[in-house]
């Protein structure tokens, strides 16, 4: 389907394990994303959903298959596929402003004047409501604020597709809800194409146009894709009683806990229950 803006076709991924064994992680991932669409990938931890995102970001190279973005096959990582990492990954020796500046100065060195770049940094930080703490160091702001700066940094790259890797996984529930509302607002202003990894059912339904549910690994693939036919702007309080919202929740829950019930092997290394925001994948 060449009409899609972002298209993953027949993506396989396997890692070399110990003693030369091959661990298949992903098998036959096919996904087409339209421009401006908000897609969530949900699945149990360890199913390889972060691997999908890293392949789109270019941080990992798929064993087979390819990814096409805006008519071109993706290669090395680049600012057109900005990533918001789970643990914010701000550089601790740079201030909030400098963290965004590092990206903006590099990416728009030739296309924006210095004063335009300054205005653009300020604009993005104000969009995530961080205008008051421009010259703080990451160690001086809260986890939620760090993630806001991470989002501002990614948005400032003007990406074709914004990749969110469990962006709120490390935050407490209240902060998480607050940031989700911010993302809803920003998304309605900018209309970005977004691919988000999550393990939170409410988050997936609340934010997404479509929810992509992944089967368990090894050799994980897409089990089901669900449309979320909810009008925007969405309001979490109003939606709590909404029949469509609850049906969507129900569908994801039944996929995760009935069809793909995770059987945790009792190994010394396994400390994750399906809902803990522990890990990327093995």
């Amino acid at each position: 389907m060449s009409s899609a803006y972002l298209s993953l076709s027949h993506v396989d991924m396997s890692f070399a394990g110990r003693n030369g064994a091959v661990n298949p992680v992903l098998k036959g991932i096919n996904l087409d994303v339209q421009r401006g669409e908000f897609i969530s990938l949900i699945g149990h931890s360890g199913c390889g959903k972060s691997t999908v995102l890293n392949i789109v970001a270019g941080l990992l190279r798929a064993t087979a298959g390819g990814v096409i973005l805006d008519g071109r096959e993706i290669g090395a990582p680049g600012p057109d596929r900005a990533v918001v990492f789970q643990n914010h990954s701000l550089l601790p020796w740079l201030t909030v402003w400098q963290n965004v500046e590092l990206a903006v100065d590099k990416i728009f060195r030739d296309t924006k004047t210095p004063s335009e770049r300054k205005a653009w940094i300020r604009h993005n930080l104000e969009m995530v409501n961080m205008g008051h703490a421009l010259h703080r160091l990451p160690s001086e702001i809260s986890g939620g604020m760090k993630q806001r700066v991470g989002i501002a940094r990614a948005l400032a790259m003007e990406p074709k597709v914004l990749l969110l890797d469990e962006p709120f996984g490390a935050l407490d529930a209240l902060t998480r809800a607050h940031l989700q509302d911010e993302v809803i607002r920003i998304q309605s202003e900018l209309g970005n194409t977004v691919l988000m990894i999550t393990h939170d059912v409410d988050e997936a339904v609340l934010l997404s146009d479509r929810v992509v549910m992944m089967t368990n690994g090894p050799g994980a693939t897409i089990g089901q894709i669900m449309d979320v036919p909810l009008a925007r702007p969405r309001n979490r309080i109003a939606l709590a009683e909404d029949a469509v919202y609850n049906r969507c929740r129900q569908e994801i829950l039944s996929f995760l806990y009935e069809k793909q019930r995770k059987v945790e092997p009792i190994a010394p290394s396994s400390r994750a229950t399906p809902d803990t925001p522990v890990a990327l994948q093995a």
Partner: protein
Amino acid sequence: MSTTDTIEPIRLTPTAAAAPAAPAWLGNTVRKLVTHVLPPVIILAVLLLIWEALGSRPGAALPPPSKVVADTWELIIDPFYDNGGNDVGMAWQLLASLKRVAYGYALAVVVGVGLGVLVGQSTWALRGLDPIFQVLRTVPPLAWLPISLAGFRDGNPSAIFVIFITAIWPIIINTSIGIRNIPEDYRNVAKVIRLNGLEYFGQIMLPAAAPFIFSGLRIGVGLSWLAIVAAEMLIGGVGIGFFIWDAWNSSRISDIILALLYVGLIGFVLDRLVAWIGHLVTRGTAAH
């Protein structure tokens, strides 16, 4: 743990004693002085008393503190005299040693960080160089002196070389560990915004490894100060090491004790100085 906490009691005793009489607005400062300055002052006083008692016994081999001060009073009050040759004030002796340390250490910093980056970045370089480093770093500093004297045929560059070779190992090792420990996230950020090699080096690698680098630098400066005293005893000329050796040869035990005190204080200041620079450069992310 400010620089002044432990070094100042020696000089600040009068202030501490006068403190309780100070005006009320000094209340906090006084309390701080009492809690931080008083304990070391008391311990120091007790140790000095014991030393005085032991040193005053008939037939004691070492002089008591009162005699040390009396014997060395001229050295203490006039550190800058210069009678030519080796007969110069304590300040000049210390400066001569510090100068050698500065040269040797500066060289070790540049080469050590460079090699550390190489070993940290390249697995091939690590495999090739690490065994050599691991063997050479265990060679005691003074063991390098004869071979460097043979190479340089002069005392001064030999001493500088000994400093260099002593200080470089912890710098190399810590730098390479720092480089290897750069979080994957930082590398990913650099990839996404497409930093080139030079930008990555300056913007990510050095600042991320800085806490490790500075702990190496701190160990290095301590080791070079340790080595210089020993090296100077052997090469002669001006320098605190030779001053001590010379004092021993002419049985001026009090001079030796004074010199040891100065060596300790300077070593302490050097350590704090590097720690402080590290604190500034890494914006508090380095251990202080």
